[in-house]
C-alpha cells in the first residue's frame, strides 16, 4: 500500500465520521434574533421648534436583552464606556403648533457601537445603523422637552451579516435630568430566494442537452 492510498483511505474515514456528526448538529446562523433595551442620560437641547436639533447620549446601559443579545458582554475596565450611541441629528419636517413639531432623524451609520462581541460562537464587531426615525418634539416652558416616536424606528444590526431591526426611541429633558429609552427587536427579512430558479435550471439544462444529443 502506497502513502498516497493510505492518505486516501484516511480521508474517506474522516469524511464519513464528519458527515455522520454534521447531520446531527444544528447549524448556526449569523443573522441575529432577539431584542435589546437600552437607557441612559440624554443631552436634549431646549428651545421651541428649532429647525435642527442634535441629541447626545451618554452613560448608556442595557436594561434587558433577549435571544442572541443575551450574550452581549463588555470589558470590566472599559475606556470606551460601551455601548456608545452617536449623536442624533433631527431635522424639522413640519410645525404642529407653537410648542410642538414633527422631526425626522438623519440616517446614521454606526449609531450604536457595541464593540467586539461573541454571539453564537462567532466574534465580530456589533453595530447598529439607524435608517429611519420620526419624532414629535414637544416643548413646555424653558426646561421641558419631550421627543416621542411617531412611527417605528428602522435600522440594521451589523454583525458579519446584516439583520434588520425595528424599535422605538424616546428622549426627554425635564428640569435638570435628561434621559432616553431605546428598544430594538430584530425582524427576519429574507433575501430573494433563488432555489426555484436553480431547480428549474436543472430541468432546462437537461432539456437543452438532450435536444443537442438528439440532433447530433
Amino acid at each position: 500500500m502506497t502513502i498516497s492510498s493510505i492518505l486516501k483511505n484516511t480521508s474517506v474515514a474522516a469524511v464519513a465520521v464528519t458527515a455522520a456528526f454534521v447531520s446531527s448538529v444544528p447549524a448556526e446562523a449569523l443573522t441575529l434574533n432577539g431584542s435589546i433595551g437600552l437607557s441612559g442620560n440624554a443631552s436634549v437641547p431646549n428651545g421651541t421648534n428649532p429647525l435642527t436639533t442634535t441629541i447626545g447620549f451618554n452613560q448608556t446601559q442595557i436594561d434587558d436583552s433577549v435571544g442572541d443579545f443575551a450574550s452581549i458582554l463588555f470589558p470590566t475596565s472599559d475606556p470606551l464606556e460601551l455601548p456608545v450611541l452617536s449623536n442624533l441629528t433631527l431635522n424639522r419636517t413640519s410645525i404642529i403648533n407653537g410648542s410642538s413639531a414633527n422631526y425626522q432623524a438623519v440616517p446614521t451609520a454606526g449609531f450604536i457601537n457595541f464593540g467586539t462581541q461573541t454571539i453564537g460562537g462567532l466574534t465580530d464587531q456589533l453595530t447598529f445603523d439607524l435608517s429611519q426615525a420620526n419624532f414629535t418634539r414637544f416643548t413646555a416652558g424653558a426646561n421641558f422637552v419631550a421627543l416621542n416616536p411617531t412611527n417605528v424606528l428602522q435600522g440594521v444590526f451589523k454583525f458579519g451579516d446584516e439583520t434588520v431591526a425595528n424599535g422605538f426611541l424616546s428622549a426627554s429633558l425635564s428640569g435638570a435630568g435628561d434621559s432616553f429609552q431605546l428598544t430594538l427587536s430584530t425582524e427576519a427579512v429574507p433575501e430573494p430566494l433563488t432555489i426555484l430558479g436553480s431547480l428549474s435550471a436543472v430541468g432546462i439544462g437537461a432539456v437543452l442537452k438532450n435536444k443537442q444529443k438528439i440532433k447530433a
Partner: protein
Amino acid sequence: MKVTYPIVTQQFKTSPFWLLTIGSGLIAIHVTLAWRGDNLNVLGAGILFWVTVASMIWQRRYSLKLESSAIASGVGLVIISLILLRSLALPARGTFYGLMPLLSGLGVGLLASDFRGLKQYWGELTALFFIGAPELVHLFIPDISPITAKFSAFLLWYLGFEARLRNQVYIDLPGGGVEVYSGCSGIDTMTHSLGLAVLFLLMFSSTKWQKVIIPIVALGIGFTVNIFRVVLMAALVSENQMKAFDYWHKGDGSLIFSLIAVFCFGGFCYWVIQQNESKQNELQQSDLTGN
C-alpha cells in the same frame, strides 16, 4: 495458488472508488449544512452545480488521469481535514461556507491527480466556485444598492409614480416608501445568473464572442428582474397593499423572480444554441455544395 476476489471487493480496492466516496461524502456534508442552516439559496445552487459537476466528471471518467503524489495527497488531505473540522461548527452564512465547495473540489482533485493534474478540472472548479459565489461576492464588490435604487426610482417615475430618491437608497412615494437594503440590491440574483452562464459555457460549445456576451446578458437579466422586483415592492407600499407586499417579499411570490430570471436566460441560451446549429448547418451545406 492465486487468490481471487469477487468483483465488488475488487472495486473497493480501486482508487476511483475511494475518490468517489470522498467526493460524495463532502457533497453530502455541504448539502446537509445548507439544509440544516435553512439556507435555501445555497441548497438549490448546490443541487444544480453538484449535479452538473458530477455529470461532467462522469462523462470524462475514462479519460481522467488519476495519478497523485504523496505531497499532493497530503495537501489534499489537509484541505479536506480543515473543511471537516470547520464544518463541525459551520455558520449558515460566511466566507468559509462559500469557499467550501471549491476547497472540496481542490482537495479531492489533489488526492486524485496531483498538482499538475488539477488543470483537467478547471471547468469543474470554476462551477464549484459559483455555488458559494453569492456568499463571497459581498467581500469583493461594493454594495450596489444605490445603483439599484436609482434605476428603480427612475422606472417608477417613468411608469407615472411620483418617486423621489433620498439618501441614495430610500425610494419615497406619496403613500410610503422602501429602503433598498444590500440583500435587495440584486447582487444575489446577478451572481446566480452569472453562475448559470458559466454552466452553459462549460456544457455547450460557444464562440469567443458568445463567451463574452453570455455572462454580460446573464448579469443584465439578473439586474433587470431585480429592478422590477423593487419597483413592485415600492408600488405596493405606496398603495398600502401590505399583504401583497409580504407575499411578494417574504412569501411564495418571492420565488417567482428567480424563476423569471432563469426562464429569460434559458430562452436566450436556447436562441444561442439555435444560432450555432443554423451556422453549423450552413457550413455543412456550403461544404457539400463545394464538393
